[in-house]
């Protein structure tokens, strides 16, 4: 455990440049939006837009972080892989460092967004805001982690390929196998018995949003909102299905790095 | 450092000779302590195993004696030391005369030459 913590400390030091870069990038985007918005008198709209962009980008933070952290290890595989620690430990250490950095950047953004919303918009109840924020945090983290584990799997395939051919060809093969895998997985989840197994635990919009505070509601609008709120936006079953897949890919990546990747 | 040793003889034998010479010269005295295996290895830039072997060989020749937990010591037996001295002299003379004979010098020429050389040197 101590070995793993020390390794993670090294990972944090290794990944620090990416963290700082992203932090500056986010601050820059919001500052720019504020500045342009101020000039044009569209502050709220532009900051909203900037926050949207930042949050969307943050979905990919972990992926980009790992791209950087794993590639910097590629030059010194002899060092990284020459350890009694299992590959699971090595990869989880990178993942943990990435998640920590992701949180350190996410928390200020989330707080800022929350304050911005409660200062400027008041059509949502406090409960709804917390639900929305909670759900989107959960959504961002789980998608980011799934993406990260998927990336690790294909990175290990890329590494294996790159021992036999140049990087460009390896990338093409990796990308093709990614597309093929995506297609097969899509076919798989649409098999009727898989659907039967996984289409459960629907969470719909009105579980999240506990009531609009519209002062004057027109009947037509009310109906529209009602229909929207009945739509399921999320199945717990799907979430579990995808999580299992991501975990399998993680162990697949570990196996490939342990048995197939050479220094 | 490679030039310290010549290639025709095992290094452990060459180190043994070096130690014998030190004993003859009096740099190492009877009953005196030899450097530890590691120290000697560092000094002459060889593997500690080699020095270990040198010390072992010297021990079988009764030139040194290893005392458990204390190190290796030059023998206190002055007769042994005297005989090494004698042996070394013989060996060098043997090599010298062998080469001289090979080139066809006679006994008398060698004796005469040696005496002349030594006398000139001694002046």
């Amino acid at each position, binding site marked *: 455990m101590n070995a793993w913590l020390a390794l993670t400390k*090294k990972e944090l030091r290794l990944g620090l440049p990416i963290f700082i870069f992203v932090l500056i990038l986010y601050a820059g985007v919001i500052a720019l939006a504020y500045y342009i918005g101020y000039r044009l008198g569209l502050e709220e709209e532009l900051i909203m837009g900037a926050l949207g962009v930042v949050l969307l980008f943050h979905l990919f933070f972990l992926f980009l972080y790992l791209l950087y952290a794993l590639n910097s290890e590629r030059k010194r595989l*002899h*060092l990284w*892989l020459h350890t*009694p*620690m299992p590959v699971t430990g090595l990869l989880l250490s990178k993942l943990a460092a990435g998640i920590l950095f992701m949180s350190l950047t996410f928390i200020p953004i989330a707080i800022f967004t929350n304050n911005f919303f409660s200062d400027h918009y008041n059509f949502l109840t406090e409960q709804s805001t917390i639900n929305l924020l909670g759900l989107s945090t959960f959504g961002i983290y789980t998608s980011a982690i799934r993406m990260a584990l998927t990336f690790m799997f294909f990175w290990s395939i890329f590494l294996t390929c790159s021992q036999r051919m140049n990087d460009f060809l390896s990338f093409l093969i990796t990308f093709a196998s990614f597309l093929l895998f995506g297609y097969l997985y899509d076919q798989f989840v649409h098999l009727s018995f898989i659907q039967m197994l996984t289409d459960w635990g629907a969470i719909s919009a009105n579980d999240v949003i506990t009531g609009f505070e519209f002062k004057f509601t027109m009947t037509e609008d009310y109906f529209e909102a009602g229909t929207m709120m009945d739509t399921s936006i999320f199945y717990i079953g799907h979430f579990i299905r995808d999580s299992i897949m991501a975990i399998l890919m993680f162990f697949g990546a570990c196996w490939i790095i342990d048995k197939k990747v050479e220094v | *450092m490679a030039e310290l040793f010549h290639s025709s003889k*095992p290094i452990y034998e060459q180190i043994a000779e070096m130690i014998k010479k030190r004993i003859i010269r009096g740099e190492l005295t009877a009953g005196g302590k030899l450097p530890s295996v590691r120290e000697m290895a560092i000094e002459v830039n060889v*593997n500690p*195993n080699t020095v270990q072997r040198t010390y072992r060989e010297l021990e079988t020749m009764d030139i040194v004696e290893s005392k458990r937990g204390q190190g290796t010591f030059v023998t206190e037996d002055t007769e042994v030391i005297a005989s090494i001295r004698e042996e070394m002299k013989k060996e060098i003379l043997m090599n010298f005369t062998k080469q001289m004979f090979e080139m066809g010098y006679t006994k008398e020429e060698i004796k005469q030459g040696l005496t002349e050389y030594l006398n000139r040197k001694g002046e």
Partner: protein
Amino acid sequence: MIKLTNVTKKYGSRTALNQVDLELDQGKLIGLVGENGSGKSTTLKLIAGLIHPTSGEITVNGEKVNRQIASSVAYLSELDEYYRFFTVKDTIEFHASQFGDFDIEKAYEIMDFMKLEPEKKLKHLSKGNRGRVKIVLTLARHTPVVLMDEPFSGLDPMVRNSIVKGLISFVDLEKQLILITTHEIREIENILDEVVAIKDGHIIGHHNVDDLRKENQLSIVDWMNEIYG
């Protein structure tokens, strides 16, 4: 201690090692010599479990080699790649945290011996000093097997000499087997117990260095000139 049985390693169509049998014993300093591309590094990486044989079997202490063998094998790569943001001290501490057998006191002792400054960052060290750091990290481990791939390559004579001195001073030949690859044979000529020559993926000779001198009146350099012609 180390045993290769009929080991072949292929990279695509290129054969790096061809049906190699090799047995090496504990307590020896062994040189693996040969030209560039003869299969020296491949042999070391195979023993370190960092690459896998195409066929054949490798064991260390009777244990079949895989990547986990890192717990009983210390491997020094010929590559000059470390975590450049670490100081010498950080690097030593990091290695100490990763390997249970790492002797941190010995590491500092070797560091002092090599005249390395603990607070200096790796990226600010000269190539020679990075070479010295690698020796510190490798010799501070109490492993039965130490593998050093070209520890002298690209270093000036002063550094090479200090590395040889470091090796002699800190190697634990009662418990360790040291396998060194090099093409700078002169540097280590006098410190080897055994020499193994490799050519085009074949072992073409394996001798005790004393025997070579005693029976054939050959130094390693002479012997190599003879067999490589």
